[in-house]
């Protein structure tokens, strides 16, 4: 029986349990004298729950363990006595036999696997039927036992609500699990990387060329300083040079000068900029902005004007960040107490003097926090640099020259044909860990700055 059909069958049993239990509860509720703690549907849910949960939990566990059980059964059979000892050969034959049995493959490399395939198929179907039988039995037994408890005095509601509460708790734990998963996977792979390459060499080395790694000294070509510089140069300097003035001035204009109707049209328009997918920005940067920047460089007489320049990637990234900076600035400007603004205006300052001398200085911590968040977003941005920046790492101050970034290198290192645990792929995880730590620090600092500032005005 296919897994889907089984799930449907169990769900149907659950539905039947729900209907039957509810009907029974409805019947005993007909007596007018008693008060009940639970509604009929609570009884229904109680039975449905006991029908579904044990069977589904069993199937979940079975799904994980069954392949191993099937393989064990095949190995234990007499036909498998001639298998080679545990090792690569054995694993290859077994996986071929499994593919043949499932119909995923049509021929086999090892003759042995052809003889094992029917055995595999038989064992698999035997295990499948066992699982189906046990699951249905569990569903039925669970439902029946629960149904026996459906009585007038039984408070099904507390039982159901306890389970719902558990579900809620489990759901919120998934966030922690994700965080742990991220940190663990980055740390484990990075630890393996740092066994090959010393951490100081990685963090402070100034030569990055993963294309040619010397097996005797892999750290010599895996020094990440040029990447950190490139990331900082594109994300924190060029992008912010575009995003901060434009974002801040847009926020000032829209909050202080624009008429209500203009604001209603302009603000969503800016927000569309934030909604454009990064791959579109990347394509735009590579196709339109980068050649223009190179031509500009050539016209200015710069010899190393690259068509994969830091400037093109940085400018487009800055445009992407404008709405973000603008909305952060908007928030902090409107958090400044109106009395400060009114006081300044009453003293005869013009509106721009009020903004420049009173509002912006007062909102500065919030703006700075917003810019920090924007930087953290810019250095984690991937597609724009993957498509528009170069793959060659260099320590340069020239915005027309090519530079590369951490995110670009992660993509380049992992999308090659390399093995999963060569120094190259592990280096990507080490870069990922660095990126994670830096963005985390930026976010924490930014949040502290913003919160302090909010408190000072509340």
């Amino acid at each position, binding site marked *: 029986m296919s897994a889907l059909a089984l799930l449907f069958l169990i769900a149907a049993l659950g539905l039947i349990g729900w209907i039957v239990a509810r009907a029974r509860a409805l019947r005993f509720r007909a007596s007018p004298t008693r008060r009940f703690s639970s509604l009929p549907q609570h009884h229904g849910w109680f039975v449905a729950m006991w029908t579904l949960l044990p069977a589904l939990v069993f199937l979940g566990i079975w799904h994980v363990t069954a392949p191993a059980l099937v393989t064990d059964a095949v190995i234990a059979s007499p036909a498998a006595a001639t298998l080679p000892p545990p090792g690569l050969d054995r694993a290859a034959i077994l996986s071929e036999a499994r593919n043949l049995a499932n119909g995923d493959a049509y021929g086999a490399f090892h003759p042995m696997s052809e003889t094992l395939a029917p055995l595999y198929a038989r064992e698999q179907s035997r295990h499948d039927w066992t699982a189906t039988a046990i699951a249905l039995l569990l569903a039925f037994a669970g439902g029946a036992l629960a149904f026996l408890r459906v009585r007038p005095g039984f408070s099904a509601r507390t039982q159901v609500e306890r389970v719902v509460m558990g579900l809620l708790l489990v759901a919120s734990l998934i966030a922690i699990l994700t965080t742990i998963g*991220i940190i663990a996977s980055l740390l*484990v792979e990075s630890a393996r990387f740092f066994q090959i390459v010393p951490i100081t060499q990685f963090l402070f080395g100034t030569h990055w060329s993963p294309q040619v790694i010397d097996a005797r000294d892999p750290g010599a070509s895996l020094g990440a300083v040029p990447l950190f510089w490139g990331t900082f140069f594109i994300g924190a300097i060029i992008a912010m040079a575009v995003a901060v003035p434009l974002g801040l001035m847009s926020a000032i204009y829209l909050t202080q*000068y624009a008429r209500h109707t203009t604001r209603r049209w302009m603000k969503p328009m800016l927000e569309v900029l934030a909604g454009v997918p990064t791959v579109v920005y990347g394509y735009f940067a590579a196709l339109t902005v980068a050649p223009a920047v190179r031509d500009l460089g050539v016209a200015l007489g710069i010899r190393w004007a690259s068509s994969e320049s830091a400037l093109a990637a940085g400018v487009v990234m800055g445009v992407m960040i404008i709405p973000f900076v603008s909305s952060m600035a908007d928030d902090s400007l409107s958090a400044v107490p109106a009395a400060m603004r009114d006081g300044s205006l009453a003293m005869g300052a013009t509106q721009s003097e009020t903004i420049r001398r009173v509002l912006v200085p007062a909102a500065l911590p919030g703006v700075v926090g917003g810019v920090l968040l924007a930087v953290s977003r810019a250095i984690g941005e991937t597609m724009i640099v993957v498509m528009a920046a170069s793959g060659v790492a260099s320590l340069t101050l020239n915005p027309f020259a090519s530079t590369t970034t951490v995110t670009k290198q992660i993509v380049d290192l992992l999308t090659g044909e390399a093995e*999963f645990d060569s120094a190259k792929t592990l280096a990507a995880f080490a870069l990922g860990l660095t990126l994670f730590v830096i963005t985390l620090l930026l976010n924490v600092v930014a949040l502290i700055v913003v919160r302090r500032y909010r408190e000072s005005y509340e």
Partner: protein
Amino acid sequence: MNKPVAPPAPAERRPTDWQTPAMQRRIRRRYAAERRFRLLGLAAVFLSAAFLLYLLATMIGQGASGFTETRIALPLDLRGRVVVNPARLNGAGADLALAGAGLENAVDAAANAAYPRQGGATLLSDGAWLRVRDAIKRDPALLRTPTTIDVPVASAIDMAYKDDGDAASEAAVAALRPHLSRELNRGFFAGSDATDPTRAGIWGALKGSLLTMIVTLGLAFPIGVLSALYLEEYAPRNRWTDLIEVSINNLAAVPSIIFGLLGLAVFLGTFHMPRSAAVVGGLTLALMTMPVIVIAGRNAITAVPPSIRDAARALGASPIQVVFHHVLPLALPGILTGTIIGMARALGETAPLLMIGMRAFIAAPPGKLTDPATVLPVQIFLWSDEVQKGFVEKTSAAIIVLLVVLLAMNGVAIYLRNRFETRW
């Protein structure tokens, strides 16, 4: 010593004379500064808007022609060349039967005969004979009667007809112009990735996106809503809930590529899930979208006034009933708005999917969740890397489709917000 200093004799107070030239100049200067500042603000807004418009205009300008294809009128006489038993033209074996009967060669020969000097069979797209095949399946009489059929041309000719080709193709087009026509490219919406730009389509990528989004929504929405409810309504204030809260806020700010690394290490590395499958992409994007939904959900839930909860509790509802019967329905529009925005972000996401191997060349739409698939943004990325010129307009056309879908989603979100959001 310490003798109180007499205040200086008050200077004769006169009102400032604003009419003096010095004062007038000063006022003019201040007003000029005011105007300059205001203009600067306006310029910033317009510059940002102009960039957006320029981006859209570039994409539309380049992509519009990607929705059309050039066809050439091909005189076709298949009598005697392609011999197929008419009984085999019905049902599943028809494709195989026609291919086996040498239809491709016959079509090439027809092109060589009709346009010998302009390039013959090289004028036709690789998919031209497939178009003939489908026409024959619709109308088997074509095998017995000479006819003229419009088939797609090769990429170089297509580009030249759209005024963007090389010199040789331009010359060929000049000679062929009366036989060429421009039609809507239906294959673009029905096909999958291909090496020949005239055969490439986005249906495979769209279907991959759809499958991925189903997984993402199915996981991220329930988990996000449930944990938002727990954190906002039930969680006791202690170190555990603080930890949950901190990790959700941080996850919302973690760069998307880190989620790709997580997917690579955990789903592919540890659980050995299939590479580049929609289910893995969906799982990865679900982890990314979940914090967005939690944060939007919590904002929507806090916006529900406490009086509603008090009223429900006063009537005897249990804590679960209060939340699921009253708070959740009232907060749902806000939660849905946040969910749609989160899903739009996930739909446009590329980097994490590259990490889990979704960058392979996949020429067939995925049939199930574990099939190798690609998604629309990744398809755009792959096409942007192609050297053939014909892919430029395909890339831009795919971008237009993606932007339209995203705009529609955001439009629905805004509509929901305006239509259902209650101001308490």
